[in-house]
């Protein structure tokens, strides 16, 4: 028989967890929220003066358009990642265990190097007379260098590349757990393979797909270093604006307000996720 733990014992065991949450999650968030309602000091720092100006500024056409453009790119990246990542995760889960483990390893290995390094790899591929140009020219598909580096497609490719594994892995974990007898039942009852996929498999793996969508959509608004390195700083993401407001302009309150908006959008997405899937926890996260 398990001895019942007393209240104070519970408190002692749970204290570090609460403390951690308080210090590293709630604390910074409250700080950010408070900061977002403050006024920027003339040169450097913050004045404790309540204002809504930081939020009003987000609605100015300049920042509003940047936000919309950011969302558009995030949407494009998420769609591409889903189209590539879902089939990959699906087929990976259906492989025999040995090959599955190998494939899983291959997906993970790039994570061991810095993401910055991997982006520099794309520069070598994309740059004028780089690998891509040479290949296409050898195939006589193009005559002049494409000049792909520092363009919108280059940024999209870089983001898809950086975020694809998150989709693959969350779809994989969802498909792996699936009860295949349900698909068999659907087929036995006369559903075509396509219909069985759409009505059974897709629905059952929706939590995985949606987790992947959240893990792709949210970071793709903030991966400013991808836009900087592959986009030559010409694609302005919400993340770039936040970073610049912090590091270059020193308008901390405005940066905080932008971050709060970004977090609000993330929360809405997670709410949507729970609505759609009915799940309380994110698939593949734990």
């Amino acid at each position, binding site marked *: 028989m398990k001895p019942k733990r007393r209240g104070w014992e519970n408190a002692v065991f749970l204290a570090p967890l609460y403390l951690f949450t308080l210090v590293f999650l709630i604390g910074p968030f409250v700080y950010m929220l408070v900061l977002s309602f403050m006024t920027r000091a003339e040169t450097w720092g913050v004045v404790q003066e309540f204002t809504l100006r930081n939020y009003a500024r987000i609605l100015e056409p300049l920042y509003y358009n940047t936000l919309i453009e950011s969302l558009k790119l995030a949407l494009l990246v998420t769609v591409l990642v889903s189209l590539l990542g879902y089939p990959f995760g699906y087929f990976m889960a259906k492989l025999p265990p040995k090959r599955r483990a190998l494939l899983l390893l291959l997906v993970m290995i790039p994570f061991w190097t810095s993401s910055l390094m991997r982006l520099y790899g794309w520069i070598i591929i994309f740059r*004028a007379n780089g690998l891509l140009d040479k290949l296409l020219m050898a195939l006589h598909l193009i005559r002049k260098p494409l000049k792909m580096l520092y363009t919108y497609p280059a940024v999209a490719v870089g983001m898809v590349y950086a975020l694809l594994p998150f989709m693959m892995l969350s779809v994989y974990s969802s498909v792996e757990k699936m009860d295949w007898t349900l698909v068999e039942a659907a087929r036995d009852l006369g559903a075509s393979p396509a219909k069985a996929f759409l009505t059974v498999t897709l629905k059952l793996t929706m939590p995985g797909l949606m987790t992947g969508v959240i893990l792709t959509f949210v970071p793709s608004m903030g991966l400013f270093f991808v836009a900087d390195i592959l986009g030559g700083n010409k*694609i302005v993401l919400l993340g770039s604006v936040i970073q610049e407001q912090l590091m270059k*302009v020193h308008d901390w309150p405005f940066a905080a307000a932008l971050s709060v908006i970004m977090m609000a959008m993330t929360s809405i997405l997670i709410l949507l996720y729970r609505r759609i899937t009915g799940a309380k926890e994110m698939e593949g996260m734990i």
Partner: protein
Amino acid sequence: MKKVLAQILVLTLCISLFAGFGAVSASADNTLNLYTWAEMFDPDVLAEFEAETGITINYTNFDYDETMLAKLESTKGGDYDLVIADDYIIETVIAEGLAQKLDLSKIPNFGNINPIYQGQFYDPTDEYTAPYGAGVQTIVYDPSYVETEVTGYEDLWNEEFEDNLAVIANYRVIIGMALKVLGYSYNTNDLDELEEAAQLLYKLAPNIRLIKDDNLQDDLISGEVSAAVMYTSQVTMAKLANPELAVEYPKEGIGFGIMGMFIPSAAPNADAAHQFIDFILRPEISARCFEYLGYYCTTKPADDLINEEYREFLVLPTEFKAEDMEMIGNIGEEAAAKQEEIWIEFRNLCGA
């Protein structure tokens, strides 16, 4: 064999451990706490200073001027003996009383400073700082690809440069190009002038291939772009890699930035800091420093000592006049906010 290697490793670890202790204990008697960006000094020069004076140098780094300012604010001007940072932040440091006046009697070589770099906005009376290197933004292009005869910023708007121009990511400098073409000051607080500059700058967007600060010279050397506006140290590296590149001082005038050495108000060892400044201002030491650093030499008698191979990049051309330069200083809040917005809009247009 492996065992020997392991023993050597352990031994080195132990030694380095003690070396660390050594530095700490030395701080009680004679250490110079030097605080600046990484790679500002040739290690040999620092070793020479240590050997000559018996002072140990404790070199710590920051990435951004703002980090340095925050640190000085939190230590109330203590902990560090000598700081090297950018001009505009030094203005704030002095205004906040975080720097102390230099004792010129302890710096006999102070007269070696090139007067062109003195009396600037951040320290008009030269009481607090000694310059350590200056940079300008110049136009560099590859004459084998470019037909336009480039004489100033104005020429960069030429259609020939469509999708072929790279610029640094310093928005004051880039918006400044448009201001200069229009004949205005870099530091204008007039919002109408800024708007006029913005409209002109937006027309440059189709020519911009990339905007970045780090290693911009690589894109020029590799042929990704045919022209670039970049910092002195990058120009030096680009020219060393490809001597055929042409460097043009824009006829509209240039903005330059100066890095300055100053002693924080509560420096634990101000004497050592004075000694160090004097050491660096020796012509032969300065020459070596700037060869290493790749910025304009701010010590006049060192100009002639710099290796000929580098001299043309590290010494301002003789025809160059102080009137042609304007320093980029701090501007008012409204103008600053306007510039930030122009910068985002400009980049949106470049990416469109």
